[in-house]
């Protein structure tokens, strides 16, 4: 740790205590129960149960459908993260540049932020309705016979679009405030040093946005993996069918919807381990390069 900081003994412990208490009671305790029940097949009401060792895990490992869902989740997460960050960055850079109407744009671009994921899903259903959805019509006018819920590629496209739609404003707000916190002196220096706007962006602005970007990257990956649940649930109309699914939705389908406690707990544990690994790697790779000024 680079921070020298204070040396008081009891204060930090006192400060950490509430957070740790809440986490231990409402996170680790239930999580431990999930790990435990991943080794059992149990009646959800709690009457019968059989210890099955690693059966729940081997069942997942052998399931071709589960592998398919994992692959889709990966692609989905990459697409949602990339497009919602990219689009937001583009808009933020533009909003930072314009002088006239900057405030109106900022206000307009923030509205969607507040939409709840299931409500975003409902709006998606409205846009992609099979008989009159405006976006269905639009796709058809380009010769794309779009059918939400029938063709799994189309359904996937709708999921990505709605998820991006909902996430752009959050990223926009952060990028914009990141951009606006770049000191004037730096901007002016950059203006003298490099003449190309593109180079100026990549050499000066982008590195300075890196801490914001890293934070947003994590937030967006978590969003794409987990918080899109409500969107997926509504867009598939509550029926997995032949639709593409994400890993979290699968946990919900098997655990919450299908009452397969053991199977869904094993999935939660797999998910936990996967994301933990991902985060550690991210930390190692990215945090080293980011300069905190």
């Amino acid at each position, binding site marked *: *740790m680079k*921070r020298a900081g*204070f040396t*008081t003994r009891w204060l*930090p*412990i006192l*400060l*950490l205590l509430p*957070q*740790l208490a*809440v*986490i231990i*009671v*409402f*996170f680790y*305790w*239930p*999580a431990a*129960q*999930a790990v435990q029940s991943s080794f059992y097949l149990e009646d959800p009401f709690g009457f019968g149960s059989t210890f099955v060792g690693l059966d729940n895990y081997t069942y997942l490992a052998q399931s071709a459908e589960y592998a398919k869902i994992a692959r889709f989740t990966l692609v989905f997460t990459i697409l949602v993260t990339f497009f919602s960050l990219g689009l937001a960055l583009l808009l933020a850079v*533009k909003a930072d540049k*314009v002088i006239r109407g900057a405030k109106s744009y*900022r*206000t307009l*671009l*923030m*509205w*969607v*932020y*507040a939409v*709840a994921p*299931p*409500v975003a899903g409902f*709006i998606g259903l*409205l846009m992609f*309705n099979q008989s009159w959805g405006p976006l269905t019509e639009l796709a058809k006018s380009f010769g794309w016979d779009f059918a939400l819920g029938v063709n799994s590629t189309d359904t996937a496209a709708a999921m990505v679009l709605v998820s991006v*739609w909902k996430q752009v*404003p959050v990223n926009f707000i952060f990028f*914009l*405030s990141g951009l*606006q*916190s770049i000191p004037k002196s730096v901007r002016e220096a950059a203006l003298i040093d490099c003449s190309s706007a*593109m180079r100026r962006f990549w050499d000066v602005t982008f590195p300075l946005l890196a*801490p914001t970007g890293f*934070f947003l990257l994590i*937030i967006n990956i*978590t969003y794409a993996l987990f*918080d899109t*649940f*409500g969107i997926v649930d509504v867009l598939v109309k509550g029926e997995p069918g032949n639709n593409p699914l994400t890993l*979290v939705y699968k946990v*919900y389908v098997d*655990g*919450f919807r299908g009452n397969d*406690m053991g199977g869904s707990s094993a999935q*939660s544990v797999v998910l*936990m381990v996967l*994301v933990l690994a991902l*985060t550690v790697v991210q930390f190692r790779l990215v945090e080293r390069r980011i300069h905190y*000024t």
Partner: protein
Amino acid sequence: MTDITPNQPPLAKRSLKWSTVMDHTVLILGSLFLLVPLLMVLQTTSTPDLETIKNGPGLAIGDQLDDNFMAAMFKASGFSGENTGMRMLMNSMILGIGFAIGKIVLGMMAAYALVYFRLRFATFAFWLIFTTLLLPLEVRILPSYEIAQKLGLLNTYTGLIVPLIASATATFFFRQYFRSIPEELVEAARIDGAGPVKFFIDILVPLSQTMIAAMFIIMFVYGWNQYLWPTMVTTDEDMYTLVRGIKQLTQDLEGTSIPEYGRANMLALIAILPPVLIVIFFQSWFVKGLTESDK
């Protein structure tokens, strides 16, 4: 891209204009992409439900706005008559604000301890907290429910709020932020003889205003938008939240009835308003804060 910022001395007047037009085009397209769907939802709240079901959103503004608004706000859809739009609005508000404040207070305290103190188990504590970013409440909802019950938290605001707080986003955010604050600040404070509590309250908290505002927005909206946990933990109708109310209105089994789309869509729009107002309110405030610190 021929991208030239307006504050650059004009090389040629034409290219300058061209880039401004480009900027505005991008921003207008972006705004349309985000807003048109909402406008379409608004339109459907003005037409009869049957019309919406048959033809979807259109251009005509109907005469149902008033009725749908009244129904959304004041008509109860439950047994007790207590879950009106007003009541649900209030519950969502309590959930959103309680959640946001809880997260920020706990998160700041924990982040402060992690960044500014020499703590033997700091890394361990950080990971202990940070791991909680990973597993959303949805996947551990059954054990969480049992625990909430054991603690007597069913049908209470505490039960609604506290289990949701058990994740690290705020702590993580404040940690990142504190680490970006110049170290000289602590040094200076110590030379001035300020203790850790004084430093926290007098220097760090005011300095973090903008971050707090940002966190408040994120957390308020997150809490506001919860669905599954509130459904589980509350059974009393006077505890229902808005998102739950919306889902209740749109539910239909086997085509037995026609859902009240107009009312549900109106409720959805009403549900968007408070967070948007908070976002807009805090936005101008924290952008101002940011530019002021930039002298």
